[in-house]
Structures are given as C-alpha cells and as structure tokens.
C-alpha cells in the first residue's frame, strides 16, 4: 500500500532546499539476477523523472535502516522509471533485498558526473569494459548509446564483460540481445567456467588483446571491482589508447553525495561530485585513485 505524499506547503519548499532530505519512491519490480545481486525498478512517488545521466548514482534509503549510494542501471530514456542493480553487502543493501513490488523506499539524487555520452563519446568508437556488478552503471550508458534515438551519434561499439563464474552473470536478457546485435561486437568471459559454460574463460583483460580497435578514434569506458582497473588500463595502453580517451567509474563510500562528509575523498577529489566517472588523465597523478 503506497501512502500519498503530504500536501504541498511552504514547509515543503524548505524541505526541498534541504540537501539531505530524501523523497519517497515506489518499488515497481524486483528481479533476482545472481546469488547476491537483484535488480529493482523504482519510480519517484511525485511522478517526476529522476533526471539522471548514464553513470550517475542516487542515495537510496530504507527507512529505519539507512542510506546507501547505488548507481543507476537504466537509460534516462526510460523516463520516470529507473533501475538499480543491488549487491547484498551491508545493512541497506540487505534490507533492499527484502523489498517487494509496492514497497516504499526513499531517494536523493542523482549525483555526480557520469559517462561523457554527450561530449567525449560523441562521434567515437566506444569500448565498454565491465567487470562483475560494474556492469550496472555501464548498462545505463550502453542502453543510451544503443538506443535508436542516439545510435548514429557513435561509431563502432564493442562491449566486453567478465564475471567470476557463470552464475554471477547479470542482465542475462540484455546479454542475449547484445549477442544477437550485428551493429556491435560483444565478448564475454568468466574467470572460472562450469560444465554448462562454453564461452571464454579467463579474466576480463584476456579479451582486450583480441579487440579490433582504432586508438585514434576510440573512447574506453570502464567499470569493475577496484582490483581490475590497473590491469585493464595496462592492456588499453598496449592498444594505443591514451589517458584522455579512457573513462573510469570509481567506487568509494559516498555517505552524503554532496561533497560534505569527506568519506569519498580521492586525494583532493570527491568521488561523489568530481566523479564517480573520471577521465584517466585527470586521476593519473592521484596515487589514491586506482
């Protein structure tokens, strides 16, 4: 049962001005995807669109439990509905895994700088490199760039995706669609296969040497676990990509999302505001970044 938001008043304007007050949203769909990962579809109760760009995140509140930063996994083109892929890791994400359609959550955001889909990526070939649940924010950009309304703004699109094992593969319906598409190249791998797995095995970096790319016109977009970046960057360099063409979405615990709490500092940068997506050239001299 969804409760209707309070009537509007002058006090509400004061609340809206408050950077920490979350607004109610309703859970529309719950789709378990892997042992620890579930995808949720939400909509703000006000009916307005979240207004995010690919790569941005929002702060999700489970009332009485707390708040956690979660990346948005759907394209802005889906308008007022948006999706989040949540790995069960802590108090808030654990409570999210108990959500059912119709349940109320609260949202703040969107926050931060996302992937440069409307700037540096325009007119370029795009190489997506996703590891594990790093596929969640990438999915937003992939969906955006593959959308018929935007597809012609980009050149060749290559998508690489790696997971630890087959049962951790996320967005399997999407993966099947990507495999069918003829206007893109899609490669997948798992670190360790099983008897039903007939695809590539090996870590994500083993896919990069086989990619046919023109370094002069390619932008790489990378998201994965913290340990993945160094190795992926080394492989991209071998392909001739320079630091200005590579964009990374970094993880930190962004408690406030608005540059106040200090938790997400990467040297002098704030992951929540300067990132979470950074151009490699801008963090190359930041020893804490990767």
């Amino acid at each position, binding site marked *: 049962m969804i409760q209707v938001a309070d009537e509007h008043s002058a006090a509400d304007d004061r609340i809206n001005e408050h950077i920490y*007050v979350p607004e*109610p949203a309703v859970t529309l769909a719950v789709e378990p995807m892997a042992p620890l990962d579930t995808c949720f579809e939400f909509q703000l109760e006000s009916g307005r669109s979240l207004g995010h760009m690919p790569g941005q995140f929002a702060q999700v509140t489970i009332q009485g439990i707390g708040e956690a930063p979660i990346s948005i996994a759907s394209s802005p083109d889906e308008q007022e509905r948006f999706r989040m892929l949540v790995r069960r890791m802590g108090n808030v994400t654990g409570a999210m895994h108990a959500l059912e359609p119709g349940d109320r959550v609260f949202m703040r955001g969107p926050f931060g700088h996302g992937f440069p889909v409307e700037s540096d990526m325009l007119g370029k070939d795009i190489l997506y490199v996703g590891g594990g649940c790093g596929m969640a924010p990438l999915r937003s950009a992939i969906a955006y760039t593959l959308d018929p309304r935007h597809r012609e703004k980009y050149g060749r699109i290559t998508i690489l995706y790696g997971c630890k094992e087959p049962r951790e593969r996320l967005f399997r319906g999407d993966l099947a669609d990507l495999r069918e598409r003829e206007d893109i190249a899609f490669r997948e791998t798992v670190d360790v296969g099983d008897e039903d797995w007939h695809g590539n095995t090996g870590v994500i970096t083993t896919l990069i040497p086989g990619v046919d790319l023109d370094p002069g016109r390619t932008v790489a977009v990378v998201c994965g676990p913290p340990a993945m970046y160094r190795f992926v960057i080394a492989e991209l360099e071998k392909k001739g990509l320079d630091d200005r063409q590579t964009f990374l979405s970094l993880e930190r615990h962004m408690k406030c999302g608005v540059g*106040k709490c200090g938790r997400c500092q990467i040297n002098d940068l704030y992951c929540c505001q300067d990132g979470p997506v950074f151009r490699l050239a801008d963090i190359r001299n930041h020893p804490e970044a990767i």
Partner: protein
Amino acid sequence: MGVKRLEPEALKTWVDGLIELGRVVGVQAREDRFVFDELGEAEDLRLDYDTTVLPPKKYFLPPEDAFLEFKDGSYRPLDRAEPYVLLGVHPYDMAAINQLDAIFLQGNTDTHYRALREAAAIVVTDVQNASENCFAGCMGTATVEDGFDILLTRVDDHYLLDWRTDRGEELAVPVMEAPDAEREDLLARERVWEKNRELLQQLKLEVPPETLPSILAKSWDDPIWEDKAELCFSCGSCNLVCPTCYCFDVHEDVNWDLSSGTRTRYWHACMLEPFARVAGGHNFREQKVSRYRHRYYRKGKYIADKYGMSGCVGCGRCIGSCPAKIANPVEVYNHLAEVSS
C-alpha cells in the same frame, strides 16, 4: 561598529546580564584544562585560558547530531536552533569556523549546519596566554578580522569591546554607557595584536603557510610518513580535537515504535581504519601510512588548493592530544620544507 572601554567589573556585569537574557556558552576551567560549556555566572568565565580541550566546532557540528527525523512515512529536517552567545572564541578557532562556513555553506548549502551556525552570536577574545603547542602566529590566525559579532581584547588592566555586526551591537546595548575607546586604547590594542602574532609562535613553522601546497606536491614518497605512521595507534585523537576536521558518518536510529526515528551524523576520522572502507571490505586507505599522510595533505594542500586557506590554523591541539607524540604538523612540515628545498 564601535568600541567601548570596560573595566573588568563592568565586563562581568555585562556577561551576567547576557546570562540573564538567555543561553551563554563560555570558556571555563575543568581541573587544569579549559572547555567550552554552558556558563552559569560571569565569575566562571576564563578569558585568560590558553586553549580548550575541544574547539568550539562542537556547537556547529556536534559529535552526535540528529539532522533528519522520520515519521508517518516521510523525512523532515531538524534545522531549528535557539539563539545563544558563544563567548571567548580565540582567533585561530574563529578562523577555523570561517573555514567550516566556506565548506558547509558554499555550493550545496548544509541547512542543518547553517541553522546551528546562525544560532550563535560569537564573541571572539584575543589570546592572553599562549598554549605551549600553539603556532597560530605562523599560520596567520593569531588575530582574526571577520566572522564574529564582537571582539574582546584585554589591554593592560581593562577590556575593549568592539562590535562588528548588528547582532553584536544589540548585545552591546547594556554597555553603551561605558566610555568610548580612545585613540590611545586602539593603538594599545594594535600592540596586543602585534605581540600575539609573536606570542603564538610557541612552535615555529619555518616556511610561510602559502608554500605548504607546493612543498607537499614534492613529498608524497618522503620517508617521514612511514617513520611517523609506524607509531600511530589509529586512535583519531588528532581528528577529534582539530577545529577544522569535519568528516562524518551517518546512522539511522529507530525509536521504540519501530516506525519513527532520526538520521544522525557522528564525527568520523580519517585516521580510523574503517574510514575509507567500502562494501565488500576493500579499504582504500588500509595502511596506517596512507591514513597518516592523507591527513597532512588534507590540511596542508587539498583544502588550501580548493578554498584558498590553509586547512591547519595552528592551534596545536593535535600535538598535545596524540598519545604516540607523532602529530606535530610543525615538525612534519618543517622536515618536508627542509628536504624539498
């Protein structure tokens, strides 16, 4: 704006008058240390203190501070705060408050901080006795020009009360009968400021604070980080007593009815092991050395680069609070200045 000359007895009468009108927080002795606390009578006020255990930031960023409440399925800000007088802030602590103002009020305004900050009428008092670890005179914070409502300066055996804002003038109404400060008094006050800029160099930073960012830019791999961090207990005392440390954690606290409660921020500290840990257990500053070094870069470079003012105001509290005796910014920065020159 105006300046009155008050004898010590007249100052006491004024403070007791403020206490009668409303809440006053002032510096008081607790055994052999000093603290900011609720002031019951002017007799307890100690304007001759050297430094307080905790800086006055505890009134703007309380150690535990509920900033939202939730009930009936919605969240509301807890931004109400009653006006009061904060009496006896030293200039270096005022400089720190001005820095917190820049951080919390610029850009995304933290309305909760703003409410707590606006509630306070601040009376700054020029230092009479320096603490043994103070180096505010090296950091340009032995005196302060703005951010406060009233400045109290002891000159010889009397005080000058200088109001700078409408709110300060309102508080000064009861002393309007006192004599105006003469030119001679104002000159004597300038000599106090001049003396304090020297007095508050109990420890001596050998380079101007403006050079710290460029010195630190060359010091990432200096062995001092390892040498000091090896002794660090990761207790966070240096963070807790720092007037410019403001990082926080956020918890949701539920009431007994299980349907209402508060969202509360708590002081966090970059020297504590979990500070940069993320879901799944990865810790971006797992090693003590990375946490120790981060704190000095934060104070000496990152804040300076972003806000144009040093993140360290030179109060010296961290030096006295560190059980391992490794938290001396003057020692660290002087070493780096020497090896990088």
